[in-house]
């Protein structure tokens, strides 16, 4: 098999997952699946960045409590978020005594972290435990990439709503019923989309690139999976991806394909235009909803393709197009 997709040789399992969802997310269609729902997105702190940091930390602590591990039992934490210099993640790690590697892949961070962790666990002979976690916050992302919250602007029909929340996953070799079977790391793809509001459009080619490489390397058809789920392409992005895949003779309409950004909000009542985005979008949907379905046994094989638009405020002002990346992880019930 080419190096592009890595099939894990040993049993790498998901030990447990945790989710913390913000107020808007916990009113959405997946509300009953989250571990914890926040009523206030500032948490009584002085800034939204600190609040996001607290949410991130709480998700990891919740995961530790659930699994009865102490921070000292964890060998590594691979985590990230959207803020400059990973403000939220770095500050969350101050109080957790866990070795930590920050990672940034925009909204694709979760998939990248899982793929990395799975590879490390696969290669290790010892009993290792790695936590992958991501967070995002609507208010910190708006400030980072867009306008002040109180500015009276109109959202374009292509806009997406950054998910507030955090998701964490424990990966190990010993416990768990869901196996990580193979991973495909993404390549940066840029087809010249310049509209910073049209992130789905920018990310669809990257998702297609990673998916096709995954299918070719593993000699599988999309039908092999009971569910193929992309990160945060949104309604239009998912449509574009289907079209791109169809043109390359992979018909996603024949499979159970959906998008985390589409699932997390109700488009009609919650005024989110294209759906959710942000690293926490795929983390919340996968941890709360897809993982539960895998455990129940209603689906057996899942391909998670987290997608990220690698845009920066500066590149946007310099009129550059938007590079995008997508990482695929294949999960299997055992």
């Amino acid at each position, binding site marked *: 098999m080419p190096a592009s997709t890595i099939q894990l040789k040993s049993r790498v399992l998901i030990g447990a997952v945790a989710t913390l969802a913000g107020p808007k997310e916990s009113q959405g269609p997946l509300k009953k699946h989250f571990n914890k729902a926040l009523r206030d997105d500032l948490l009584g702190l002085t800034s939204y960045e600190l609040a996001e940091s607290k949410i991130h930390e709480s998700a990891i602590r919740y995961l530790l409590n659930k699994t009865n591990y102490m921070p000292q039992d964890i060998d590594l934490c691979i985590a990230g978020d959207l803020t400059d210099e990973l403000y939220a993640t770095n500050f969350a790690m101050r109080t957790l005594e866990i070795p930590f590697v920050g990672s940034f892949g925009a909204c694709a961070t979760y998939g990248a972290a899982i793929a990395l962790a799975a590879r490390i666990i696969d290669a290790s002979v010892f009993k290792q435990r790695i936590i992958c976690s991501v967070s995002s916050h609507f208010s910190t992302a708006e400030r980072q990439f867009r306008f002040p919250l*109180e500015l*009276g602007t109109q959202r374009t029909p292509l806009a997406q709503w950054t998910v507030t929340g955090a998701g964490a996953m424990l990966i190990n070799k010993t416990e768990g019923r869901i196996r990580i079977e193979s991973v495909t790391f993404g390549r940066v793809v840029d087809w*010249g989309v310049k509209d910073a509001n049209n992130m789905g459009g920018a990310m669809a*080619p990257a998702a297609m*690139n990673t998916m096709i490489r995954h299918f070719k390397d593993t000699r599988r058809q999309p039908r092999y999976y009971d569910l193929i789920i992309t990160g945060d392409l949104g309604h239009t992005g998912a449509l*574009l991806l289907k079209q791109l895949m169809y043109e390359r003779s992979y018909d996603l309409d024949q499979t159970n394909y959906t998008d985390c950004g589409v699932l997390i909000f109700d488009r009609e009542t919650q005024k989110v235009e294209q759906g959710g985005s942000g690293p926490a979008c795929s983390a919340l949907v996968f941890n709360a909803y897809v993982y539960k379905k895998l455990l129940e046994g209603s689906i057996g094989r899942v391909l998670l393709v987290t997608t990220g638009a690698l845009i920066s405020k500066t590149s946007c002002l310099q009129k550059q197009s938007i590079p995008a990346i997508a990482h695929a992880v294949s999960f299997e019930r055992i």
Partner: protein
Amino acid sequence: MLAGMMYMEDQRYLELIKQRAPKTRHLRTMIAAFFVGGFICCIGQAFNDLCAYFFPALNPSTIKQIVPLVLVVLATLLTCIGIYDKIGEIGGAGSIIPITGFANSIISPAIEHKREGIINGVCANMFKIAGPVLVIGIVASVLSGIIALVLKSVT
């Protein structure tokens, strides 16, 4: 097949996006902008007329200076209590173009950056959005002033 398609402008794909992406409903947003903008102007005019009615002693040019002040204070208040951004969501340009929108564009970054302190936060970021408007406005007024001066001296 996948080689060489990582980074290039794909005109066919950009065309596909144009076809598939939902468009802004211009007629609806324009009608909303017309009514919201019109309503804000009506408030200004009403205040103007009421002032003239209740305080006949004030001369019209003083009233014309008071009206924008009142609108700015109103917009600031509405921004601070988190209502103006909701008006903006409906009104679009209708609530951005009037002087109330200008007030909103100064107050909203000021609120946003209060957490970084008065000097480096509020003062440094206040004109982040309104800055270009001020610069272009001042430059335009200076230029038109020079033109007017030249024309006057010629004639």
